[in-house]
């Protein structure tokens, strides 16, 4: 009986190995459940779209790409186990992800020693820049976004700045850069850190209300927490303007509390990335998955990250990690969001920001912001 089982499982094992030769496995890491899922899903759907297109066109060097998707729930510990599974069990060729910065930073500790490419579409924490030689990203670092937010505060004449930060890598990174790049004469009037996933901000906001400040930067990790901060602040009668970043650039916030978010300003990669005519990425994405749950740019950058990676895989048929890395450093890829290349740290060059505003529950872009490298 045992012998039979052994033979059968052995045969299955070899069958599995044989079939592996015809496909290239790519892993993905991102939040598919939990508070961060709206952008995790947008990102993954766009990756699927690009991979399907590549497979329909014959694959990469005659091999089909197979996706292995892992849910890292926007936290480091799940991302570490996901990366370990993808590296050691699935033995993927490269990983697209993570989505949340905490995921990318944690996964990098597994992929870097394994010399495996970790290409994140939208992780923006400054720390990702130094996360490793094999870590790349398709979205500009928050070192830039923090600076642009500071410049925006200066332009509007906001001197006393308040920040409420959710305690995650992404939010902490943004808080630090805003703090360090504030213009002369500007100061932090209110700077508080809250536990991840907090929903009751009333007492903290009661204190904020008694503080003299010009603008409050809503620096939460997900739209679910941001919308509560904004809603409860308006309910308490706080009148000052709100500012936000990526995580507030979410259609969900406009749907959940249209009155409270009215007028809120957000700096993030442009929503129009990928927008265009009938052949554009946006049209293809909407036809297959409907409106993006958070915003289009997350999907567009996911789509391009898959495209860039596939291009690198095409150039390196051996799928060797170091060769793939060099291919990415030399990449000049015309994607849906723009022309993508990477600097010496693996950070994207060529993607800028836009200043956006909530009007009648919808997000409207007011102006483009080109990132000036200082």
């Amino acid at each position, binding site marked *: 009986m045992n012998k039979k089982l052994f033979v059968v499982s052995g045969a299955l094992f070899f069958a599995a190995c044989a079939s592996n030769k015809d496909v290239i496995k790519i892993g993905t890491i991102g939040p598919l*459940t939990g508070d961060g*899922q709206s952008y995790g899903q947008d990102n993954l759907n766009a990756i699927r779209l690009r991979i399907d297109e590549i497979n329909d066109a014959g694959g990469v060097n005659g091999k089909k790409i197979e996706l292995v998707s892992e849910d890292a729930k926007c936290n480091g510990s799940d991302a570490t186990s996901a990366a370990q599974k993808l590296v050691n069990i699935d033995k993927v060729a490269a990983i697209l992800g993570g989505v949340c910065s905490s995921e990318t930073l944690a996964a990098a500790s597994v992929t870097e020693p394994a010399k495996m490419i970790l290409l994140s579409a939208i992780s923006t924490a400054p720390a990702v820049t130094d996360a490793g030689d094999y870590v790349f990203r398709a979205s500009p670092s928050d070192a830039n976004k923090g600076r642009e937010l500071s410049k925006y505060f200066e332009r509007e004449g906001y001197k006393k700045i308040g920040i409420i930060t959710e305690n995650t890598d992404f939010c902490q990174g943004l808080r630090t850069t805003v703090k360090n790049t504030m213009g002369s004469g500007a100061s932090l009037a209110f700077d*508080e850190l809250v536990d991840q996933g907090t*929903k009751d901000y*009333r007492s903290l906001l009661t*204190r904020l209300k008694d503080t003299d400040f010009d603008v409050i930067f809503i620096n939460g990790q997900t739209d679910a927490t941001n919308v509560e901060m904004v809603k409860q602040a308006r309910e308490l009668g706080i009148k000052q303007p709100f500012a936000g970043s990526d995580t507030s650039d979410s259609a969900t916030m406009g*749907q*959940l509390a249209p009155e409270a978010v009215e007028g809120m300003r957000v700096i993030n990669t442009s929503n129009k990335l990928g927008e265009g005519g009938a052949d554009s990425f946006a049209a293809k994405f909407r036809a297959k998955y409907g409106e993006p749950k958070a915003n289009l740019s997350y999907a567009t950058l996911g789509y391009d990250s898959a495209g860039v990676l596939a291009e690198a895989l095409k150039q390196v048929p051996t799928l060797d990690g170091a060769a793939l890395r060099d291919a990415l450093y030399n990449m000049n890829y015309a994607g849906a969001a723009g022309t993508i290349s990477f600097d010496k740290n693996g950070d994207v060059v060529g993607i800028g920001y836009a200043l956006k505003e909530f009007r009648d529950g919808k997000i409207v872009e007011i102006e483009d912001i080109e990132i000036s490298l200082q």
Partner: protein
Amino acid sequence: MQLLVNTLIAGSFAAIMATGLALVYGVLRVFNLALGQFALVGGYVTWWLVQPLGLPLPVGILGGIVCGALVSWLSFEIAVRPFYKRHPLLPLVSTIALSQILDGLIQLIFKEQTRSILIRAKEMVHLGSAVISMEQIKLIIFTVVLLSATAWILHSTSIGRRIRATVAHSQAAESLGISSALLHRLVFIISGTLAAIAGIYVGIDQNLTPVLGFTITIKAYAALIAGGKGNIWGAVIASYFIAAIEQLAVGIKWFGYYLPAGYQGSVALMLIIVLLLIKPTGLFGRTSRFA
């Protein structure tokens, strides 16, 4: 003043959860770890009736409560009744399994998205220096009514007397002819229904995400244990007490400094640990005698 209002809002929600928990623990001696999920069922069903279906709010609330009761009844039959007489810890495991199944079902049915039952801006009322919304006033008053009703049932009806007798001494109560099977089922459903009501609170006052369940359960347990296990009024008072500490921790200056807001939750739990070190039976627990 605003802090008092904030405490009442947060405490009302916690008190309802803790009442249900204390009832179940007091009567069945069972830990139900799926209680937070019952709350989500209530909240999500109400959201579904009010938002996509466009029914009036009271109908939605009623639907949420009925569904919460049904789910807790089913849960009792499937995950609790077959096990709890054999060993009191068995339901601990079976309700964890149940909580994960319910989590999965909620995600499957209601999708992974942040939901809010009321979308329009709320009508704010000024009470002296404090601000509060009409909805929140209703929630606070409703909690008082609900808790008073529970008190009345417990102290002035025959069912209440049976419940109290079972809490005091289950074997003696049974030998006096109190049918425990029926009573246990009833108490479990009441606790699930109370949880569903609490879930509707969250959906109206804040927003619902499918991952909220476990957090809700843990907070209710903190109140249950701080209040003295199985002591309903202890749990209610402990809920308001924890809420007050959480709000005061970040809301006022301590020795000239503000406490970082990130410690809000930990401060409350730390105080519970200190409390239990001083008085291991909880705030209002009876010192039990082992003879």
